[in-house]
């Protein structure tokens, strides 16, 4: 009695194991669909979705103009002090003083890619870029200035 039960159990185990192995065997012989990516080698074809949050960048047009008014809404929206806006006063031709962006400092090493600054910006001046290879040898290189040198605010953006 004990022996028959024992053999039955072993047989059942072998059967269930074979069932699983059949599936494994199926995949072993049908390797049509390749699901892994050879990452560093496929850089050229690698397309990330447009919404992918890689880093914050400032949009500049062909005239090297951006839409940032220096309102600091993004700085206030950021939960961890990643953004620091330094403003200056531009003197307009009529001699009026106007607040404008001087430097947009962005600490990539602090950024959590939460998208809150982009949501907060009233003029849509910043966006998320898809670049994700951020490793550098010195963390100071991660502190970036987002407004390009010599850039200025686009005409008509308030």
């Amino acid at each position, binding site marked *: 009695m004990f022996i028959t039960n024992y053999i039955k*159990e072993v047989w059942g185990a072998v059967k269930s194991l074979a069932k*699983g192995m059949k599936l494994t065997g199926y995949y072993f012989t049908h390797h049509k669909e390749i699901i892994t990516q050879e990452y560093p080698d496929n850089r050229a074809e690698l397309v990330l*979705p447009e919404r992918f949050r890689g880093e914050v960048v400032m949009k500049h047009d062909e005239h090297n103009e951006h839409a940032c008014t220096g309102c600091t809404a993004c700085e206030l929206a950021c939960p961890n002090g990643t953004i620091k806006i330094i403003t200056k006063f531009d003197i307009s031709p009529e001699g009026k003083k106007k607040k404008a962006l001087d430097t947009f400092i962005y600490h990539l090493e602090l950024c959590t*890619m939460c998208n*809150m600054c982009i949501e907060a910006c009233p003029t849509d001046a910043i966006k998320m870029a898809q670049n994700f290879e951020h490793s550098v040898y010195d963390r100071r290189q991660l502190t970036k200035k987002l407004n390009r040198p010599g850039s200025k605010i686009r005409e008509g953006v308030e």
Partner: protein
Amino acid sequence: MVEEIGTNEEGELVINMGPQHPATHGVLHLVVTLQGETIKKIEPHLGYIHRSIEKMCESLTYRQFSYVTSRMDYLSSHINNHACAMCVEKGLQVEVPPRAQVIRVMVDELTRIASHELWWGAMAMDLGAFTPFFHAFRERENINDIMEETCGARLTMNYIVPGGVMADIHPNFQKRVKSFIELFRSKIDEYDELVTGNIIFQNRMKGVGWISAEDVVSYGCTGPVARASGVHSDIRKLFPYEIYEKLQFNEILETGGDSFARYMVRMRELRESVHILEQLVDNIPEGEFQAKTKAVLKLPKGEFYQRVETARGELGVYIVSEGATTPYRIKFRSPGFANLSALDHIAAGGKLGDLVASMGTLDLVIPDIDR
């Protein structure tokens, strides 16, 4: 008798499992007291990944704080954000547009599937089967792709915000979810074929780590752990939120109370989540995806509580407001902490080899326990 290193006064062997142990899936430190191979006592030592999220939240505004909660139970990040968003909405008395509600429930269920899949792969790996991990990650990748496209992130989403969702769904969303549902249905059967039906696997799970319904209640366990002992604990059914009331799905109950029952609850929940997605994918109402809210949110003075069902059980968000722009106090009732507290009861008296099975079916996420 000379006292050996590692034994206590009674001659029991005291060993450390973790904090760097592959089966604890994170920095959980268990001090296990053994008599021979039998477990006498398990003492979890916490705090290795404590980031004081609750305290951090007190200095963040109501719009900002929910992004941190993606980092609690990182496998249910959408659901954590959802709980926070709903708690704030409760205080503000904002009506969430129907479109946002449906999107929220859909991403919640996708998250639940992704979380259960990762658990399934890791669980099988704990018990010695390596292939299931790849099977699980193959399908989980599909969900991650959907998330990447719609939310922009793969793990720490911050997509559900007070008032609705951060952005409308991607045009491909419905198509992709549909093809995922179709694919996933056949894959669950494969999972069953590969692991569930395996006798060796069943023998390692059945009768291991048993917990009674009374103990589940007294330890405060929720989620699949409670439902495996026959305790009704699905918040989606008991305290329906968003559109769960109108949806057709079953609360999965098993009565075994052992590791295998907990395993089966999650496997059946996978099918249930797919069923929910099927009902919604073609019925996303048109309209706004976010309600109009003020730029600076201020909750009225008072206390607000909202609970949701994450992949691990009941997550409660408790906000005390003094009427300012930041919460006065926030408390998270995390499912993992309560489930872990039952581990000593579940595994004591069993064998050391079974501890991995008991712990695996509790589905512990350590950052959720430590916060």
